[in-house]
């Protein structure tokens, strides 16, 4: 975690400086009779830069290397598979529709990632899609994206 903290410190420091710089350049620091829209952001950026510098310094001084925080092997594969499937679902939400997308997403995760039997995967997928439809579309009238299939 030591290397990660160092990196985080540097990245956050740079981000905080940019945040303050934007506040200074683009938003008024002082208005007609009090602080303007740039006042608080500027100081927040300064505070964050200070905290990030402390994090970097602390991590650099620390002798403990610490365990890696990202998983390896099977854990990493599962994490990436779930993340990828979710991102794909969200990206294609307008194309596949919320209800059909829900079924597709669940079937894919349950069968391909979690290795459940087909009947379990399809049953849960169909059931959850139906509940989703009943609660959100039918009852709460949330206008879900319908996608090319119409649901």
């Amino acid at each position, binding site marked *: 975690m030591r290397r990660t903290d160092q990196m985080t410190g540097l990245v956050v420091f740079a981000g905080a400086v940019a945040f303050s710089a934007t506040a200074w350049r683009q938003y008024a620091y002082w208005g007609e*009779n009090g602080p303007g829209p740039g006042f608080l952001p500027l100081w927040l950026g300064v505070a964050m830069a200070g905290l990030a510098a402390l*994090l970097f310094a602390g991590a650099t001084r620390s002798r403990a290397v610490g365990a890696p925080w990202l998983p390896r092997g099977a854990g990493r594969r599962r994490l990436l598979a779930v993340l990828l499937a979710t991102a794909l679902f969200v990206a294609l939400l307008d194309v596949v529709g919320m209800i059909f997308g829900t079924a597709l997403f669940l079937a894919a995760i349950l069968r391909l990632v979690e290795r459940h039997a087909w009947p379990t995967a399809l049953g849960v997928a169909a059931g959850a899609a139906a509940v989703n439809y009943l609660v959100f579309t039918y009852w709460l009238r949330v206008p879900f994206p319908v996608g090319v299939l119409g649901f």
Partner: protein
Amino acid sequence: MDLLTNLVLGFSIALTPFNLLMAVLGVIVGTLIGALPGIGPTSGVALLLPLTFGMSPTSGIIMLAAIYYGSMYGGTITSVLINTPGESASVVTCIDGYQMALQGRAGPALGVATIGSFIAGSLGVVLLMLMSPTLARWSLSFGPPEEFALMLLGLTTVTGLTGTNALKGYMSMVFGLMLAMAGFDIVSGRPRYTGGVTEMLDGFDFLPVAIGLFGMGEVLAGAEQAIDTRILRGRYGFRDCLPSTADWMRSRWAMLRGSVLGFFIGILPGAGATIASFLSYTVEKKVSRHPEEFGHGAIEGVAGPESANNAASAGAMVPLLTLGIPGSGTTAVLLGGLMMWGLRPGPLLFEKNPDFVWGLIASMYIGNVLLVILNIGFIPLFVRALRVPYSILMPLIIVFCITGAYSLNNKVWDVGQMLVFGVLGYAMKKLDYSPAALTLALVLGPLAERALRQSMIISDDGLGIFVLRPISAVLVALALAAVAVPVVRGARGAMARRRGLAAS
């Protein structure tokens, strides 16, 4: 006895069959909505507000208020069972509630939350009834400096919760405040930090961020592990959900402290159930004889905050009804409803619409009784419903997160935002940052900024206004003390370690 006459009037209204039915429905629907991750009281009340337009205002507010406190309780269920708060006031319940669930003690955690909520809710309504005129006058004297000082105190105490790493807690908090800067500036109306994206003009909504950080983050952290069903084992019969005598002895004062603290925080404009729950947790940790158990399943860490957030939702009704100032996001939505019914909240409401005010107050007594009966009965049912393998529950939670984030504004943009914060929440969790501090800062950011700038505008002494006014001076001093404690403790720890190294 004016009060008694009013109360009799109120009960005669609240006990009509239709109003009673609305209270029952509201409590059940509210609990269900609160239990869905990502759909908290605010969105629940907002989504169901249109349903009440066919009713009389009194029946409508009875149902909406029932949804409000029902969902306050429902949020506890998911906090304890799957570490996913339904709304920000239950964030703090996750800390020890989920730990208790991991130890197979989800039943007592939920039981103590129900009992605490009942005690707090009932006490809150009594206080609301007795003290609303006086308290309304008192909070009327609160200016922007006091509001800002109070929010500052709320923010700094959060870092006491993050436990392992105060520095990273402050970083999380400042990051939340920075996120809160995005969108229209409330004073000047100018857009800030939008990157030219239209969707960013409204800034970061609390809900997609919270769903992402907590719901999605937890799911991703769970996904990298092999299937983990620890939480689903254990006994969850009706008897197992009743807290033991030892649990009761440990949590009774926590409940009482949480109730009183929660009510008084709840009545302050801008503060609310979230701050109340965080403060209650901090207080319990400080007064506890075994503070080291906090974060590892201390029952007081559930009892106190859960009592506090329910008492705060009763307290939040005081400024709403007497001043027309909402004390929380949900009461802001309720205010919108009142105005649509043509009612003008304020001191005159008590004189002009006594049937409405007292009907609501009486229904809150009834609602609390309903809540405890329904929930003691429902706990085993909820636990059974969640006794599903995590490998099946996990993708289902993701679907909940997506639908919850979407149904806020019906925008895919919010879903994308939720996903980004999900990845961030995962990293924060793994690297000892505090998603809770970030979330609270995001919620309070705009309110705190407005109070800060208004204070500076009315001030002749710049920042001096915060220390020259007695109430804000005390609050600021407390906030600074909250910052100093972890720093001093860290420095002493480092010195002790160095001495230890030198000695060896």
